[in-house]
């Protein structure tokens, strides 16, 4: 069975500082990993995904994520946070099926 863990309920960062939102996974086969963001009263917006190839994946809005197979992690990063990045971030994984298995989400708060 696959599972996704986001160990932090909330991450607080000052604007302009780098941010990291953590995600670890447990998938039986090859992991396909995704990050989504949810703004208040909005749906889930796709940020980026790792399928294969380079461990550093670049996505929308300046976000990137690093796949680390040995640590089974897929942390989301951004070099310089913006107040507008404040939102709920979800990590998700798939193996061979159709279903996305989501983590519980991490609330990111970027303060001015």
């Amino acid at each position, binding site marked *: 069975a696959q599972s996704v863990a986001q160990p932090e309920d909330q991450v607080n960062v000052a604007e302009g500082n780098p941010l990291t939102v953590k995600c670890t996974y447990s998938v039986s086969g090859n992991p396909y990993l995704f990050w989504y963001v949810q703004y208040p009263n909005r*749906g*889930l*917006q796709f940020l980026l995904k790792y399928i294969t190839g380079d461990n550093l994946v670049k996505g929308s809005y300046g976000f990137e994520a690093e796949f680390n197979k040995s640590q089974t992690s897929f942390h989301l990063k951004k070099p310089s946070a913006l107040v507008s990045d404040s939102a709920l971030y979800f990590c998700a994984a798939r193996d061979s099926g*159709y*279903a996305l298995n989501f983590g519980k*989400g991490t609330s990111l708060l970027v303060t001015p």
Partner: protein
Amino acid sequence: EPEVTQTPSHQVTQMGQEVILRCVPISNHLYFYWYRQILGQKVEFLVSFYNNEISEKSEIFDDQFSVERPDGSNFTLKIRSTKLEDSAMYFCASSPIAGSTDTQYFGPGTRLTVL
């Protein structure tokens, strides 16, 4: 940019009533999905649908639930007899093709409140 749309944005119903949640997937997409998010909990997979058939479903998707693509554009989720615990945000998603690597694009959700 094409988007998945969902109607209504908020649905209030009495326990035991039937509800139909509607979704219009992105037009050239072939795979469709429903997920739900109970308040304060994580997003959970319900069902995937391709070529007018269910391709995968979770344990949550019991006989009270059904999905249909009644025409070329709409994709619906029906809950036959709603329970209090069905109160949640329901998200529709679509993807262009099959496969684990494919990106699913989500709609804004329908908030279902069962009284």
